[in-house]
């Protein structure tokens, strides 16, 4: 049974096809209004989530399907000690497709290995979150009209940010991509992403700790939060935290068509005064996430029927 646990489970052709379907859904929502009639999505969320769960549920409703929902480990059989494998087998008897979020890394893979229906990973700890990457890709595509020949800046916590690693993996499959990696020394992209993805594929990149000087060259700026708990000492955190807060004054020399993204939730890394800037795309990302989840649910249910 085909599941999507990691963005690498999807080929570039499949990502392109999902983008096309999502764009068609946006243009022709009525065409898809009953596409998943009598189908049930089980959303198994073993840790708190607002956007992702609602996005999956809204996606299924807009496809004419129904939703079975489990939220919080405390209200499910997991509280009685049921394994992820048994939960997946059980839910396979009720639903047609599963979207699962779990605090443990690899939990979605265990579910997929045991379910007899498709499983979509809606986040497994700090590991993978492929539908966020699909949302990011649709946003870039809609804002820039292409994936190729773009200079993409990633700013903030590039070490622990799962969305950063996945998007680097996906976007560098396209030609003419340049990366600018903006982070404090402590939060640089880990070696396995730099070596296995960026260097191995000869992707031009630069690393810097200076957001202000990097901004003018960017077509896309992907912001993430610099978290206090990631630093070894308070002094370093206090020294660096404000460098990675995006404010209108830092956008003075940015391109007129810069696309500013953030996987959300934000805390203070993008000032609310940036929200009115037409280049702010982070709330569009949320909406695009729903369309890509619709496209993915459709694809996996169609494949399952075959």
């Amino acid at each position, binding site marked *: 049974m085909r599941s999507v646990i990691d963005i690498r489970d999807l080929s570039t052709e499949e990502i392109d096809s999902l983008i096309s379907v999502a764009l068609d859904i946006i243009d022709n929502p009525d065409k898809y209004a009953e596409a998943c009639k009598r189908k049930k999505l089980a959303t198994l969320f073993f840790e708190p989530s607002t956007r992702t769960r609602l996005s999956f549920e809204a996606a299924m409703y807009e496809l004419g399907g129904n939703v079975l929902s489990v939220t919080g480990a405390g209200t499910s059989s997991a509280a009685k000690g049921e*394994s992820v494998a048994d939960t997946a087998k059980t839910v396979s008897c009720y639903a047609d497709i599963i979207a699962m979020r779990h605090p*443990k*890394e*690899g*939990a979605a893979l265990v579910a997929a290995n045991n379910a007899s229906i498709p499983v979509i990973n809606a986040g497994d*700890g700090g590991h993978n979150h492929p539908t966020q990457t699909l949302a990011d890709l649709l946003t870039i595509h809609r804002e820039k009209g292409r994936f190729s020949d773009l200079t993409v800046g990633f700013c903030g916590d590039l070490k622990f940010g799962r969305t950063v690693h996945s998007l680097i993996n996906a976007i560098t499959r396209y030609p003419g991509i340049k990366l600018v990696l903006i982070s404090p020394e402590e939060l640089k992209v880990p070696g396995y992403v730099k070596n*296995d993805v960026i260097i191995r594929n000869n992707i031009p990149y630069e690393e810097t700790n200076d957001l202000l000087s990097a901004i003018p060259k960017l077509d896309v700026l992907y912001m993430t939060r610099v978290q206090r708990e990631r630093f070894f000492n308070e002094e370093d955190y206090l020294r660096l935290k404000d460098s990675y807060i995006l404010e209108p004054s830092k956008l003075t020399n940015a391109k007129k068509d810069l696309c500013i993204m953030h996987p959300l939730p934000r805390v203070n890394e993008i000032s609310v005064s940036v929200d009115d800037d037409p280049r702010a795309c982070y709330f569009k990302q949320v909406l695009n996430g729903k369309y890509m989840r619709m496209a993915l649910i459709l694809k996996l249910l169609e494949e399952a029927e075959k």
Partner: protein
Amino acid sequence: MNIDSIKDGIVIDHIKAGCAMKIYELLGLDKQDVSVAIIKNVSSRKLGKKDIIKVDADIPVDLDVIGFIDPDATVNIIKDGVLIKKYTVDMPEKLVNVISCKNPRCITTCEQELAQIFNLTDRENKVYRCAYCETKASIN
């Protein structure tokens, strides 16, 4: 046990110096009721120094374990005091229930019936990663 001559058993040779104890441990030889000789830092023309393990019993050994720790080691099967078969080992593509994932956030830490699976992700640098959370394998 005379470590110079084994009648029926196994000699794991050309082990990189310092790796014999790890192989001994991961093969579970410490739990078997057999005579085992671990010879460390033997002079070797090829390696400079090497380790050797001699097992004085015809027991099955997991070649994947040896290949994981030292793909350059060789395994010799001795029958009636004669070398009857010599194996070279290779890094296995997949390791099952040999080592455990050390990532406290990995699903295997709370669901202990799951098989511990590691995949070879970088042959050149001998990197294995957990199949579930992709944490790099640590053999210590």
